Each structure stands twice: as structure tokens, then as C-alpha cells.
């Protein structure tokens, strides 16, 4: 007896009792549906993180250089950092000191208490990509340049919020008071958030880093933002930085290196574990579904005892009967799997659009979307698992059918 024949027969018996077939499948439908929903939403979240990271840049390395803090003045000089970066052009593509200048921005009589002041170098802006190391773009004017930084000129680049609030949208060439000192606005960053907000990421001022150090009273740069050439050189870059800082300080507490890649990996690992737990819970439903199939198949074997007897009298061997029932169980649960996959995709898209909308609004970042679709792999695996469950739980009833004595089976009323 060939497989296609068994398969056709299985479809036939599913068609003849639709309600029963559907109820039999329900466990599998729910189980597979739940797995698909969980995986889809998980993929959506992972995708969001990826997009966020892409925007900031997966190549980012943050090197904290606090010094030993034992009263010694020894601290890494910015030039040493530059030398390291410059000597490894195949690993690093840029570095900028990152100095927080605190707050204290005024324009005429207007006070901006929440505006953040950052001190950076001209290397913050990359002419080749037209973006900062953070991935932001300029809307107007220019970025800080080498002369501005080396001569500690009083020029600044401001965020879109500040331009709007302090200059009514026209800031280039105007003067802003930062830390009591007048600065000339030379550039304006493109708007980042969908809505301009006080204290948001559009409410910033970038000035030459040594100016910011002066302002905050710190004598050293404690944070460098380093850019690796690509995702693949992040680990090597991290090792180079660690090596240099260790050689310099001989003290692990004096520095710390953090990469965006590590953070992303950590987030992904955490989400992976969370998803695994959820999928495991959903899998219980698949188990219950499998038992449901086994139950119905046992009933079906009893109901069709006479048919089994007839088939045996005509020469069906045990394996022919067994295969017929296993294929029937497999087909039932495969159908359940397909319905579950469709149902899961539908619900995931529904939940995804609501939840995704909320998340994106919450984060307030533009250009990031939440896309809750399952991967093809997840769909194929779900389908495979549902077929597998049918075959597994169909085996016992099928074996029972195969072992029936033909005389008793023929006599069965």
C-alpha cells in the first residue's frame, strides 16, 4: 500500500467528519499558534533592538578611563588614545572624547535648565558617512572642526529642540550663552524624536571637549567613544583598548570598556531565554494536543475494526495497517499545524501592530518599526513538530490496529 493512497484516505476520513477532525486538531492548533505568536513577537522585539542599534551603530565602543582614584594624578592623555586609534586603521575608524559639561544654557532671558552639554572632538563627525558616531545627521551648518577643538573656540552645534525654542528655528550664526560664556551656533542637528521635548535627545549642545572639561572642572577625559571599522573588529578593538589601559594603569578598577555589541548580545541572550521559557510553556499544549490525537485514533481504530479485518483478509500486512493509521494521525496533526500557523501569524500581526505602535510611541524614536512576523524557519519547524506529534502519538493506536486478529476483526459488529 503506497503512501499517497494512505494520504488520500486520511484526507477523506478528515473530510467526512469535519467537526470531530477540528476538535481533534484543536490542541495542536492552539499549541502551534501560541508558539508562532511568541516567536513572532520575539522577532519583533529583536528587530526593534537591531534597528535601534543600527541607528546608534553596532561598532560603538565606550572606553571609560577613571584613573586609579588613589590621589595620584596619573591619567591617560587623550593623545595616547588618539595614537592607538590611528595606529590601527584596520580596526578603528574614529574616536572622540566624550565630556559631560553639565547644564546651564541661556539665550537672552531664556533659561534652558535641562539642556545637556557635551564636549566632543571634531572626530565625532564623520565626513565619509555624513553622520556623527551616534548616527545623527546635521540639518544645517557644519560640525565642530579641528581648529575649533584645538583652539578651544567658543562655537557649538545644537539640537533641533534648542533651535526651535531659543531661536524660533533660525539659529545659525546666533549666540548662545553656555556656562556663562557666549558661543556661536555653527550647526544644527537634524531632529531625532518625532516630537521635540525638553530634556529629550534633541535638547543638546555639542562644544569642543576641552571647553566642557573646563566648565565641569575636570582635568581629564574619562570617557572615549570609539568607533570600530565594522562589527567584526569590535572584539579586537576592545582587546587593544583593554591592553593599552591595563598597561597604563595596571589596575582593573581604573578603566572599563563596554561595547554596543556586548550589550546587544546580552539583550538578545536574555530575550532568547525568555522566549524559550514561553515556547516551552506553549509546548505543553502541543503535548495535550498529541494525547487528544492518540485518544481519537484509538476510538477510530475501534470504530473501524471491521474495515481493518477486511483489509487484512485482502492481504494487508501489519505494516500496511500501521502505516495507514500513522499517516492519518500525521495528516490530522499536520492540518492542525497549518491552521495553527495561519492563526498564529494572524494574531501575531494583530497584537504586533497594537503593541508595536505602543512601544514605538513610548520610545519616541522615529524610523523604528515593530514587525511581528515569524521566521520561515520557525514556520517549518512548527509544521515539522506537528507532523512529528501526530506520528508519535498515532503510533500506539496504529500498532493496536495492526495487531488485530483478522477473524475477530471481520466478525466485529
Amino acid at each position, binding site marked *: 500500500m503506497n503512501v499517497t493512497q494512505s494520504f488520500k484516505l486520511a484526507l477523506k476520513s478528515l473530510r467526512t467528519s469535519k467537526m470531530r477532525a477540528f476538535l481533534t486538531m484543536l490542541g495542536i492548533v492552539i499549541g502551534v499558534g501560541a508558539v508562532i505568536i511568541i516567536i513572532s513577537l520575539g522577532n519583533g522585539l529583536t528587530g526593534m533592538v537591531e534597528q535601534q542599534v543600527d541607528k546608534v551603530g553596532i561598532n560603538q565602543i565606550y572606553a571609560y578611563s577613571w584613573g586609579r582614584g588613589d590621589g595620584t594624578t596619573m591619567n591617560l592623555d587623550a593623545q595616547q588614545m588618539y595614537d592607538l586609534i590611528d595606529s590601527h586603521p584596520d580596526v578603528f575608524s574614529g574616536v572622540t572624547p566624550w565630556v559631560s559639561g553639565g547644564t546651564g544654557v541661556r539665550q537672552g532671558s531664556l533659561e534652558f535648565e535641562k539642556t545637556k552639554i557635551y564636549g566632543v572632538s571634531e572626530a565625532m563627525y564623520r565626513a565619509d558617512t555624513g553622520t556623527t558616531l551616534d548616527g545623527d545627521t546635521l540639518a544645517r551648518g557644519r560640525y565642530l572642526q579641528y581648529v575649533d577643538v584645538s583652539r578651544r573656540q567658543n562655537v557649538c552645534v545644537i539640537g533641533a529642540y534648542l533651535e526651535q525654542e531659543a531661536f524660533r528655528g533660525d539659529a545659525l550664526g546666533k549666540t548662545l550663552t553656555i556656562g556663562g560664556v557666549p558661543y556661536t551656533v555653527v550647526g544644527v542637528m537634524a531632529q531625532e524624536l518625532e516630537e521635540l521635548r525638553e530634556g529629550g535627545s534633541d535638547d543638546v549642545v555639542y562644544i569642543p571637549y576641552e571647553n566642557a572639561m573646563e566648565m565641569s572642572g575636570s582635568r581629564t577625559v574619562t570617557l572615549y567613544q570609539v568607533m570600530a571599522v565594522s562589527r567584526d573588529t569590535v572584539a579586537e578593538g576592545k582587546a587593544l583598548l583593554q591592553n593599552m589601559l591595563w598597561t597604563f594603569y595596571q589596575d582593573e578598577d581604573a578603566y572599563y570598556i563596554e561595547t554596543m555589541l556586548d550589550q546587544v548580545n546580552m539583550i538578545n541572550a536574555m530575550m532568547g531565554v525568555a522566549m524559550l521559557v514561553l515556547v516551552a510553556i506553549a509546548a505543553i499544549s502541543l503535548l495535550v494536543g498529541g494525547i487528544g490525537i492518540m485518544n481519537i485514533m484509538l476510538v477510530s481504530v475501534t470504530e473501524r475494526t471491521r474495515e481493518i*479485518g477486511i483489509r487484512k483478509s*485482502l492481504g494487508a500486512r*501489519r505494516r500496511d495497517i500501521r502505516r495507514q493509521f500513522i499517516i492519518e494521525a500525521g495528516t490530522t496533526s499536520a492540518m492542525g499545524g497549518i491552521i495553527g500557523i495561519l492563526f498564529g501569524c494572524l494574531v501575531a500581526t494583530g497584537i504586533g501592530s497594537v503593541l508595536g505602535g505602543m512601544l514605538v510611541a513610548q520610545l519616541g524614536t522615529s524610523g523604528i518599526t515593530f514587525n511581528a512576523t515569524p521566521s520561515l524557519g520557525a514556520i517549518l519547524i512548527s509544521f515539522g513538530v506537528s507532523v512529528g506529534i501526530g506520528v508519535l502519538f498515532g503510533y500506539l493506536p496504529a500498532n493496536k490496529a495492526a495487531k488485530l486478529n483478522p477473524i475477530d476483526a471481520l466478525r466485529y459488529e
Partner: protein
Amino acid sequence: MEHLIELRDVYKIYPMGAEAVHALDGVSLTIDRGEFVAIVGQSGSGKSTAMNIIGCLDVPTTGTYRLGGVDVSTMDDDQQAEIRNKMLGFIFQQYNLIPKLTVLENVELPLLYAGVPGQERRERAIRALERVGLAEKQRNLPSQLSGGQQQRVSIARALAGEPSVILADEPTGALDSRTGREVLAFLQKLNREGDTVVLITHDNSIAVRAKRIVRLQDGRIIYDGDAADPRAVVQPEEAKEEAEA
């Protein structure tokens, strides 16, 4: 010459509590190719057990059964299934068609289990249906046919595999007398065309349509001979009772 069916000293013993029931009590029987034999007996005579053993649905407790020269009395389930598939065609009282399969699919079944490829299977099944005059009903379901037609389909199914023996178990039991006669006439026709037919029945009037009658009683053969012989249809016990009365 080798016999087609050869039962030698066959016993079938069922344990029944403390006692043992001898369903067949030392039966020896040979049937040759081209014969039309009726195995007759009342219920409890052992004819169903004989039919099960001849049909390779069961094995004897002791004794040997050779079918087509092969000892089948010690075969396991699957080996017996293959013998049934290749050598035997069953016709049952209740037709035993599978209700959700079409007429053609039902007739194809033995060929399916024999591993005959699709095209050939269909052709052979249609030829078998043509022999019973039901080729035009091939797409119908059994339930759309009359009882006589269903029995003819089951005959076609028995013929499809071109078996050595056609084994008919009370083939007219569920039919009215006219249709029953038609079915019997058909079995006679098959026999004339060369098929070996073994008919199992409790009904003398049906048994006499065969050429040879084997009468069973209490698991033993009490008559084996020409169907035309008047002794073939006499129930010895009945005769005794009548004589006593």
C-alpha cells in the same frame, strides 16, 4: 499430481475453561484445481473454522495445511497476509465492502496490497468489474448499489487478484432468493471458466449447486462426494430422528 488444497489430520482446539472444544477434530481433505466444492454443516459443525483455516485467517492447532504445495500451517501473520493476497479471493455474506471507498477503489484493494502499480491496478480492477457486469458503477459508493450489486462488486474484488481459490462464505445469506440464485449462477460460471470455488454454507439447497459436497458435523467430515448423490443432502441425525418418530 499435487493437490491445490491439502488438509491432513487437522485439529483446531479452543480451550474453553476446563474443557477443550474440538472445532475441527481430525479433518483431512483435498481439493484440486477447477473443483467447485461446498462445505456444508450446521452452526457448530466446524465449517467456519474450516473456512478460516482454508482462508489462511487462522492456523490449525495440529496437522498440516498445504496450499498450492506450500505448507501454510505454521506461517506468521504477515506471511499469511501475503498468501491471502496472492492465492485467495474472499466473498463474504455481508459483502464487506469499505463504505467510504468507491467501487473501483474497493476492487483495487487486493492489488494495492500486492504492490501493483497504479495504471495496471486500475486496468485490472476494471476488467474484474467487467466480468461481473458492473464496470459502469466504478465511481459509485457501495451504499448507492443494491445488495446483489454489492455482492457482485465483492466478487470482482475477489477476482481482481487472480487468486487460485475463491472462498465464498454464505455468499447468498444476505440476499433475496432471486438475487441469491444469480450470485450462485455466477459462481458456477466462474467455475466453468476454470476457477476453483469453495463455498461454505449451512443451506443444502445452495450446497447442491456445487459439484462436490463435504459435510461437516462436530468437527468431522461425515460425507465427501458428488453433490448429485442423495446421501449428500441427508442430515443423518435428522433422518434418525424421523425414523424414531
